[in-house]
């Protein structure tokens, strides 16, 4: 992709058409004048431009388009490709295209494009879990976004900064990032329902982590409402699609196109299903913590549905959470039912989910007063995490076993597992 000056465009077009200077000049002007225009030494009048465009079968708009505006388009193109690669988790390719875009952004001093490139780099680092580098890129890009009032980008960048801070367990920082995101969103009339839903969900999450239950609950309800609206939007989108088709049948193409565009936009907005599943699942967790199990079930079930349709591996996590809810309700038959599902999925996945399976099973067996089985399950769990080489899990399960024996006055066994747990804690440096 090339960026051409006015003269270069004229020259290239002329060569493509195999015309000589003389032919192009005709009897209108001298070939020398055209040569001056082609080499950028003279600026053509509007009249002359119109003549040239007509003679070479092109448009004045094409000839007139400034280099900056061409560069802007080139950058946008590269950035779109880069973003597509990033979403596809092909970071090397993504970085290559960002590099290309940055070249033009710097050459033509395109501040917004520059910021966007930094933002995309931040995204790559974020997906690669290089948190500190990601924050650097986001912070640098945000300074530019803020200065130039690109509000939606500012919200997005603050949101990402906050997510990373959460990842790093810096909840005060995260909270201030999300609050800034909310403030920009609300004061500048940004319209993006999914985005604000996300911001509210994360605010609810950090306030929970910071022990501010009142605000956490407030935001969880705000998020819930937003996502409900989005859910309804799907239905709305479907009706619009129908409408578009009807217009097409009636031959009213303009209206058909108009409605199809709106429909597309709505579907794009709701298309982030995997992401939606994560948030639904986490909302379920929050409501579990607020002791509102009915609401919690609603969200878990939505997450479950989304994950089943998308063949999402994280379905086991959702099932584990659902099982916890049933245990809390002491509804053991239901809990055991879910437990079976978990076992099926865990064996498919072969992840640490099996550990969670054993621990849930242990809790159910304890509730059923089947001590023999409970002891066996816990020992199996210990055996499993030892095989998986996870020292921290080993420490935790040893301590649980110690407690199990101590509660049954088996002091000798309790001491053995306590010591082994303490050893494991020391090995991983949790205690000195």
């Amino acid at each position: 992709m090339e960026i051409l000056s006015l003269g270069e465009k004229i020259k290239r077009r002329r060569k493509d058409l195999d015309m000589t200077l003389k032919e192009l000049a005709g009897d209108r002007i001298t070939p020398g004048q055209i040569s001056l225009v082609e080499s950028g030494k003279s600026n053509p009048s509007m009249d002359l431009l119109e003549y040239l465009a007509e003679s070479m079968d092109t448009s004045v708009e094409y000839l007139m388009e400034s280099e900056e505006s061409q560069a802007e388009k080139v950058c946008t193109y590269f950035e779109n490709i880069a973003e597509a690669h990033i979403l596809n988790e092909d970071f090397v390719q993504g970085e290559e295209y960002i590099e290309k875009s940055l070249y033009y952004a710097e050459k033509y001093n395109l501040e917004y494009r520059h910021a966007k490139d930094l933002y995309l780099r931040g995204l790559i680092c974020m997906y690669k879990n290089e948190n500190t580098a990601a924050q650097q890129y986001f912070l640098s890009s945000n300074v530019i976004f803020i200065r130039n009032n690109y509000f939606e980008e500012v919200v997005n960048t603050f949101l990402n900064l906050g997510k990373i801070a959460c990842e790093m367990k810096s909840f005060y920082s995260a909270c201030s990032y999300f609050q800034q995101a909310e403030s920009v969103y609300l004061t500048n009339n940004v319209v993006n329902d999914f985005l604000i839903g996300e911001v509210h969900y994360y605010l609810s999450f950090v306030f929970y982590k910071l022990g501010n239950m009142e605000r956490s609950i407030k935001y969880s309800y705000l998020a819930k409402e937003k996502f409900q609206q989005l859910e309804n939007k799907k239905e709305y989108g479907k009706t619009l699609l129908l409408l578009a088709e009807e217009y097409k049948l009636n031959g009213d193409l303009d209206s058909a196109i108009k409605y199809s565009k709106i429909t597309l936009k709505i579907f794009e907005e709701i298309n982030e299903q995997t992401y939606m599943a994560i948030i639904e699942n986490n909302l379920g967790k929050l409501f579990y913590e607020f002791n509102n199990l009915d609401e919690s079930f609603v969200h878990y079930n939505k997450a479950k549905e989304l994950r089943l349709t998308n063949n999402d591996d994280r379905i086991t996590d959702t099932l584990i959470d659902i099982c916890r809810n049933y245990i809390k309700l002491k509804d053991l038959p239901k809990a055991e039912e879910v437990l079976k599902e978990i076992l099926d999925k865990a064996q498919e996945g072969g992840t640490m989910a099996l550990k969670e399976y054993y621990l849930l099973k242990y809790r159910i067996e304890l509730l059923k007063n089947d001590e023999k089985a409970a002891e066996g399950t816990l020992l199996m769990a210990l055996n499993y995490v030892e095989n998986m080489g996870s020292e921290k899990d080993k420490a935790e399960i040893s301590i649980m076993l110690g407690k199990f024996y101590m509660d049954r006055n088996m002091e000798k066994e309790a001491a053995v597992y306590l010591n082994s747990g303490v050893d494991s804690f020391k090995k991983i440096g949790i205690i000195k």
Partner: protein
Amino acid sequence: MEILSTGEKIKRARINKGYTLKELCRDKISVSKMSCIENGKAEAKEWILDYVAQILGLPLDYLKEDVEAQILNSTAEIEESTELDKKMDVLESNLGYAEEHELYNLAFKLGHMLFNTYITANETQKIQKLIPKYYEIWNKSSVKGSEAIYLMDIAGFFYETGEYEQAESYYKNLRKASKKCKDNKNLARAAFSEAACCVRQKKYDAAYELVIRYEKYIEQMTDGSRKAEACQLLAMLSIRRGDAKFSCYEEKTYALFEDNSDSIAEAMFDFAAAMFDASMEEKAATYIEKAMDIFNGNSIEARAEFMLKCVEALVEYGVIGTAKEKCNEATELSIASGNLKLIEKGYYLKSVMLEDKKDYKSAMHYIGLSLDAIIKFGTNLEIYRRYLQYGVMYHRMDNITQALKYFNLAISMEKNI
């Protein structure tokens, strides 16, 4: 203090005197014009103010002083105040007035002051509430250099909440930006703050690289105590690197702090911590003792906090003898301060001392007291750490039941961090 616009002042005085608009205006001014002035919809010309002042018996200066000047005056009155509660009240209401009158540059300055007052007063919740508003005001204002001020404040807040990694990111970004626009003052401040964040994360090499690279900018700092803090950082890092320059920087630090003995004590504590890490236990212990001697603190609370910090360091590095001597004093101070957080720490340290004396019964008593307290105010992380510490202690005491209990509590608490 109440802040009134010129119109509001006229209206209030007129009603106080029992005049109607017509009585005030007579045949000089139209009633509708005066009504507009009172409601702030029209500006009063000089001669009208003259006239009104005369009729209502008000000083002309009082009438002319506009909202901005009033806010500035009332702010100047409390600017240096050490009564934090009062300062916060005044700043909060002044900020409200400035916003109401759309004086965004002034509002930004007030926001900046309020933000830092909250930090000094440890008002984390209030800062959280202020941040979105402060951000909005910053965007609406056009104060020169406001970007650096705003970002510096946010970074400072991250630092105060102990989220050093986040603060570091912010300072790094500020440092780069200041370098670009050749703002040496902010460059030095950002660089040294960044280094301080590195130190808190124990990234000493990175910190050292920074301070060495920016050492030459120290002279350009205008604030004396910032200069001193920069030297303190250099001195402390010299110890960690076994560098001979320590005593030179040390002297400079003390000299720059002048007669601020509390800051010197803090610096000595800082050096001692570095000495402990460099296996210079004996020297470290003498520094800590000296620091405890010279630290005054402007309140019992500050003194208790410092003493506890010192005792905790001594315990951690096994200088139990000196720790024992000072522990009782520290605990008593903490109780006198009435600050639950400090009291809890006192109980914890006391339990460690008693365990060392093998007086397990009393140790358990203090563990109980400490846990009762920390459950009330501690964050999940703080509670988790105590559970682990007590698990280890009971394990050492061979008390299996209790050890298992606290380890189990720690494990379930960890999931909520």
